């Protein structure tokens, strides 16, 4: 069992993700958000369990469902919310938006809207750590859809042969957008795919913070010892649609299934019950939730009050080393 401090920190981070996503949904309804947003509600234990097993200087790469990952890793909320509103104060200066909340200051090295795109990035960061003889590790989040991309297999194999310090962390929420995993996977367990590459594959209950944290901690320790990658499959569930507010014509998952998860498998409720059994007081946990919501509302105010970007700024940030070309003066005729 982990320390008191880990318990309360994890509960705080999970509440921050829940409050952040709830606020984003509200902003979408209010017409404040351009573009698509993908909510992590329902997947908080999986995200935070993975992130809490890492150090601040360890790397994470993620997915289009990007909000939870940097929050789980400890990022400040204001620049994240400002990014979602497309402001110059946003963490990516308004160039990334909801699908790409990336905060280098907490080791977040990119949230990719190309499915599976974060996998080679994190595997490469692990290669970098190994070459630099650093003891950093990298963790890549991806969904059940991404395991059918070639780069998942290519990178898992390279991580295995080179014993790279990388954790392949699948948030298996059962659906790739609106396509059920059972219709695109030859068998139901993503973790079993690890065996083909000589890598340990672990299945955990993604709604159970303790289970995820334990599995991730073991994988991180193994990676730091130089023993190579682990594939963790966290069986989880997203409570919202693929995109917030997306109208789906035709049911692809039963209403009863959604309700069952919301009623009985909500990771925040489950973790609260665990914490109460461990002797945490209800008012203490309420205060943590309250503080998370306060920080999120502060971030919303910051984002709304931040100035819009200057359109001319669209032309900056492309190159680290821009090459200045001599201007050709057209001869006047």
């Amino acid at each position, binding site marked *: 069992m982990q320390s008191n401090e880990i318990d309360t920190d994890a509960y705080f981070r999970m509440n921050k993700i829940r409050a952040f996503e709830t606020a984003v949904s509200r902003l979408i309804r209010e017409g404040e958000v351009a573009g698509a947003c993908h909510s992590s509600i329902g997947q908080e234990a999986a995200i935070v369990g993975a992130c809490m097993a890492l150090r601040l200087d360890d790397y994470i790469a993620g997915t289009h469902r990007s909000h939870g990952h940097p929050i789980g890793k400890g990022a400040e909320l204001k620049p994240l919310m400002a990014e979602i509103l497309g402001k110059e104060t946003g963490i990516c200066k308004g160039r990334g938006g909801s699908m790409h909340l*990336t905060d280098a200051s907490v080791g977040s090295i990119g949230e990719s809207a190309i499915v599976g795109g974060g996998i080679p990035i994190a595997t*490469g960061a692990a290669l970098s750590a190994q070459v630099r003889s650093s003891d950093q590790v990298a963790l890549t989040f991806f969904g059940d859809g991404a395991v059918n991309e070639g780069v998942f297999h290519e990178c898992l194999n390279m991580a295995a042969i080179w014993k790279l310090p990388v954790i392949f962390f699948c948030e298996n929420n059962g659906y790739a957008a609106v396509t059920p995993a059972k219709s695109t996977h030859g068998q139901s367990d993503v973790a079993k795919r690890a065996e083909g590459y000589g890598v340990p594959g672990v299945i955990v209950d993604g709604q159970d913070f303790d289970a995820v944290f334990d599995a991730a901690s073991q994988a991180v320790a193994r990676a730091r010892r130089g023993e190579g990658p682990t594939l963790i499959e966290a069986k989880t569930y997203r409570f919202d649609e693929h995109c917030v507010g997306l109208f789906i014509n035709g049911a692809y998952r039963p209403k009863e299934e959604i309700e069952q998860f919301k009623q009985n498998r909500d990771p925040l409720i489950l973790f609260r019950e665990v914490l109460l059994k461990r002797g945490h007081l209800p008012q203490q946990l309420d205060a943590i939730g309250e503080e998370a919501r306060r920080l999120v509302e502060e971030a919303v105010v910051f984002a709304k009050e931040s100035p819009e970007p200057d359109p001319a700024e669209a032309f900056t940030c492309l190159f680290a080393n821009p090459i200045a070309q*001599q201007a050709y003066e057209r001869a006047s005729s």
Partner: protein
Amino acid sequence: MSATQLITYLEALGLAQREEMALDESVIIIGEDISLYAAGGAYGDIDAKRIRSAPISECGFAGMAVGAAMTGLRPIVDFTIASFVYLGSDPIINQAAKVRYMTGGQFKVPVTYRASMWHNQANAAQHSDRPYPMFMNVPGLKVVAPATPSDAKGLLKAAIRDDDPVLVFEDNDLWAMREEVPITTDFVTPIGKAAIRREGSDLTIVSVAGCLRFALGAAETLAKEGVSAEVIDLRTLAPLDTYAILTSVAKTGRLIIADYAHRTCGAAAEISAIVAEDGFDTLKRPIIRVTTPDIQIPFSPKMEKPLYPNATSIAAAARRLM
């Protein structure tokens, strides 16, 4: 005058890589069959962990190089044959070119992708691509194509030292070309600068990669006919040295572009558009593109060889302009 040594284009590429790996321990190399060359001493006594002989997983290692570049290394990815760059193109285009921009400048991506344009060697269409124009169309990438042994060394070194993703399209048809190449490890060819290889006053021949030797050959023939051709070796395709092109065309009033790529949306097409937009009033005659036609590369040498630009086709184009 700095010291030089007589080496081939291929040796110059190896030398550039070996020098940069010795100078900077953050430089690593990833590619297929690399271990053979490492065992043969091609990389000197460089730590083996910096030389990654990869499985045949181009998309995977092209993307890993981006992650490694974002976290402190300067990876060189060797695709060996340029046709294989397509397999690695998703992470080049969707990650390497976009990561810095999409994160608001939080990362630099100092990665070098090497691709040797195998062609004119009877290897048929899947080993004979010259795909540089596709990557000129991607903001965030730098693209170079050296035409001489000195630039093979200088541009590859510049690419490795650059803080942005650079694609180096090498020309296998030039591997045996010999030249005196500067010995100093400090020698680099600046990215973004074309070279005037021959001065002239009647027409401008802008040349891409190995088309240079044909352009120079054509200029020699034309000189005997009383036509003075200026030959510009582009060296860098992105960003284009538009100043060098437009200044030369303003002087000569005639433009031929010799480009190995297919005709549609090739480098020559872009250069033509730039000159039509910004140098139209300096043109005395229409622009001519001498390119590989829009057909796949056949295996049989009898069919393959005539498809590429050569000194005869460039000179013939020049005569149409005079």
